[in-house]
């Protein structure tokens, strides 16, 4: 059953950046967009299971640290080879300065 989890404070993530969040044996990536919205995806790249936290966020795109595959982190859509499998996304919301994700 999906439930809302308190993941971090909004200030824990820089603007246009991401953090890694591990929960219940799973790993997620939580993003703060340039216009201050928050998003959540799986934490591992779909190409070779690398942690996306070491990657680079530019606008709405996360670029994988390993082979430069790119995803739109709002939709999880694979945007550039070598990634071709989309990234799973999860709802995220902000309440009282905390970021909650539904996983």
């Amino acid at each position, binding site marked *: 059953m999906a439930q809302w989890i308190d993941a971090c404070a909004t200030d824990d993530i*820089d603007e*246009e*950046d991401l953090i890694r969040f591990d929960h219940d044996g799973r790993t997620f990536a939580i993003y703060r967009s340039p216009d201050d919205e928050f998003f959540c995806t799986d934490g591992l790249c779909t190409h070779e299971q*690398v*942690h996306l936290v*070491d*990657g*680079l966020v530019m606008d709405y795109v996360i*670029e994988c*640290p*390993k*082979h*430069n595959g790119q995803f739109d982190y709002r939709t999880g859509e694979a945007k550039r*080879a*070598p990634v*071709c499998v989309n990234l799973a996304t999860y709802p995220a919301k902000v309440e009282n300065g905390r970021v909650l994700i539904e996983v």
Partner: protein
Amino acid sequence: MAGIVIVGAGECGLRAAFAARNAGYAGEITVIGAETTLPYERPPLSKPDAAGVIEKPITSKEALSACAIALRSGVTVTEIDRANRQLQLSVGSALGYDKLLLTTGARPRTLACPGGEHARVFRTIEDAREVFRSAGASTRVTIVGAGLIGLELAAVLIGRCAKVTVLEAGPRPLGRNVPEPFAMRLAERHRQRGVDIRCGVALRVCTAFSVVLENGQTIDTDLAVAAIGVTPNIDLAEAAGLTTQNGICVDAGLRTEDPRIFAAGDCAAVQAPDGGYRHYETWQNAQAQRDVAGANLAGGDARFSGPVWFWSDQYDLGLQGFGETEGDPAAIRDLGNGAEVRFYSNDAGQLIGAAGLGPSNAVSRDIKIAQRLAGATLDPALLADANQNMKKLLRAA
């Protein structure tokens, strides 16, 4: 209608077919590949997991048919007839083209010393399977060449084989465009793990059981692997009268002097702004050039511009870099935890390259940002300050 024909179904050629389709090309697209398997990625070949060689296909049959790309595997192009715009195929037939892209890649150099044929090469999935099949617990392996592929192989074979020796003709490992301190650190890690790296050596002869050096030393060897670099596959272009150097010569739009023929990837030599031709042998170059080639095959006017980026994984360490990384760095950024990035600039103070080494992907983000900052004039003190978020520099640039 003859459409686009692409010769070489590797990273560059196959993906260029998709790029041409994505750029709106509606005609026929045919990709011809000498290898019989569905095209696969090469980098994982030297980074196998416990189960063996990783086969990572570049695409699927479904994706090919969804984009109406015809792939002819196991077929070699033997001749380009430019006057009639036609290719001769190894299967006996001919194939017409409207536009032609050459992505024939490169082939591994073989050892020149007597008995050099005893050393296996490492380029294709078949090569990789052969090497790992022959590499058992009692095997003594000798790798010739301490470049990236030789050292990646050493890193995976030392855990599986009785002995791994790496022989290098140059004075140090990774002499080509890897900063010396990083090369030394990687070499040290190899030595800690038990790899015997010997530099400044020349081979006298190879036999089925040994590699003999000019200094008289004999290295007992059950499996020898040559990892001494590659030669671009330019023969087809050369025979067709196209200009070649260390690669098929193309302009920044990846066009040869024949307006219907393009070349990209490991087989190409691209004209740089200074007029010289640059040849690259990295995966990201294949990626960047396939986008340009694909767009231009579809009638566009895209241009390739460096610098190109590379990575290598050895043990727990990840190396990444781009551009020129020779000489003294303009700044050194210590990210802590054994991760370091070195930045290089030209006489005008513009950033021309960077390289980083650290655990796993620790240096990745800074290298990505640095690559986007290439050409900018930056304060070395800011680059060296690990508390300074590099992204701020990017926003300011």
